[in-house]
């Protein structure tokens, strides 16, 4: 046993998550829908509520004490994010509404400026709709083309070549359906200088992310999947790229000076943060990062890998169950189909036993088509899940089969 697993006390951790301690339809809640959104520890909930009770005001503009305190808290959180993903500078951390907005922002600023007719944008077959549609919209606007890197039967992404007209590569770090962890460093190497955007929505909560080591140009993630509040996310971009990008939205805070003749834009990161941001949300995200770091992201990785292995083994023993996504390097996402039973029915019957899973296409319809299934049932893990909960899921599936027998 490694020291990492020894210090990991899941029972104590569960005490930090008030929502977990309730019954659903008369059964203890088993929350296995973490890839959709993660639950919040008391530390995050309290930090937000304390902030509103003691420090809150608008930021970056007041001379008064509360504004100064709020600004300080907001900017401290930015530094926490910077350190958490090892970005070279806090100026490269831009707060947005979520992964979706981060990707759209890059498409609409970097993309519109640098990508044109005859150019190519490269994505993979396992992307979430939010890393497909913004590029399709850009292609429609500019006459560029989308090229899709295929995925094999296990869920691994194939090798690819960049062409002279390849202008951007946009890939997930971890697939929200298959759990595949993509080899980002290898992808960046193959990109051979073509900018790489990484959709890290599923990665940041579950593994150490070091954007410098990855070498990617943009990295996006959402606060709500990282045990933080909703409506908030982060776009990391390399300074050189961000500086050359036009602003996304115009308004307050993103300007240096405004006259009716000419406006000069503010410096990074403020150029991309028009208007009053989600100040308390950012403070909450800072608290979420503190919380994750206090547990240790490496400990989380080890614990979740063990849980994934257990879950994979147990679920594989359920007769008629087929796991979709069996890549070598996987994170705690298990999509599966049960022979002859539609995922929707599986989800409803599990719910009646207190087990929350996601069913459907998981915002990845092209990937569903690739695997020839209309939908899957997906159990996705977090560090507060336990082996007992996996056992409950297996029992739940037995009940599903009993009804459909």
């Amino acid at each position: 046993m490694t020291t990492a697993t020894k210090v990991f006390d899941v029972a104590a951790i569960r005490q930090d998550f008030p929502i977990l301690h309730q019954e659903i339809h008369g059964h203890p809640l088993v929350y296995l829908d973490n890839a959709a959104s993660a639950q919040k520890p008391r530390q995050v909930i309290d930090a937000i509520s304390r902030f509103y009770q003691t420090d809150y005001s608008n930021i970056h503009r007041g001379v008064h004490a509360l504004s100064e305190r709020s600004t300080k808290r907001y900017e401290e959180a930015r530094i926490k994010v910077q350190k958490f993903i090892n970005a070279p500078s806090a100026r490269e951390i831009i707060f947005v509404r979520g992964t979706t907005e981060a990707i759209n922002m890059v498409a609409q600023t970097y993309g519109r400026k640098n990508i044109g007719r005859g150019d190519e944008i490269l994505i993979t077959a396992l992307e979430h709709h939010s890393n497909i549609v913004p590029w399709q919209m850009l292609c429609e606007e500019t006459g560029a083309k989308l090229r899709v890197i295929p995925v094999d039967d296990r869920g691994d992404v194939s090798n690819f070549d960049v062409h002279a007209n390849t202008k951007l590569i946009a890939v997930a770090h971890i697939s929200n359906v298959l759990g595949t962890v993509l080899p980002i460093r290898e992808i960046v190497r193959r990109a051979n200088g073509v900018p790489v955007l990484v959709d890290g929505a599923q990665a940041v909560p579950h593994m150490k992310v070091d954007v410098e080591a990855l070498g990617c140009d943009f990295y996006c993630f959402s606060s709500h999947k990282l045990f933080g509040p909703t409506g908030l996310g982060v776009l990391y971009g390399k300074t050189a790229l961000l500086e050359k990008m036009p602003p996304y939205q115009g308004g307050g805070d993103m300007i240096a000076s405004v006259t009716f003749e000419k406006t000069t834009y503010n410096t990074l990161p403020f150029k991309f943060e028009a208007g009053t941001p989600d100040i308390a949300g950012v403070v909450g995200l800072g608290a979420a990062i503190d919380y994750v770091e206090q547990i240790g992201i490496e400990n989380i990785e080890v614990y979740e890998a063990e849980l994934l292995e257990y879950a994979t083994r147990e679920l594989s023993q359920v007769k008629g169950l087929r796991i979709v996504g069996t890549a070598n390097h996987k994170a705690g996402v298990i999509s599966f189909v049960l022979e002859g039973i539609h995922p929707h029915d599986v989800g409803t019957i599990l719910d009646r036993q207190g087990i929350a899973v996601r069913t459907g296409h998981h915002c990845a319809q092209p990937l569903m088509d690739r695997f020839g299934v209309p939908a899957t049932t997906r159990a996705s893990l977090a560090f507060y899940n336990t082996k007992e909960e996996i056992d409950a899921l297996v029992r739940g599936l037995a009940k599903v089969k009993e009804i459909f027998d």
Partner: protein
Amino acid sequence: MIDDLYQEIILDHSKKPRNFGHLDASSAHAEGFNPLCGDRLTLEILLEGDVVKDARFVGAGCAISVASASLMTETLKGKTRAEAEKLFERFHQLLTNDAANADDLGKLAVFSGVREYPARVKCATLAWHTLKAALENSDEEVSTE
């Protein structure tokens, strides 16, 4: 209870859907799609004057949507357009309104359990929405066949 949703008739029709397949000749068809769960079905109907003579469907979906399509096609035969539309209205009431009664809905009454599962109402009504589209299409189809 979960058994109120997955009643015997529903399970039976989901495993052995009636009127599954294509019609030799049809007066109208429509495709139904539930983007939320990927359920898809194609419905074909044969009208004689104003009366639905036959109806068949193909597609894939959850037990609730397949059973609903199966039971709908059974119920439809011999109904006039107006009767079919009225039936959909009653059926929808049954799924969404606690006070609705199942009188003269016949076998369709087994879907009353869906009421307790708001997320599943769309599954139960997919076939009916498709029927509505088919009946609307049929106006144009008349000239071609």
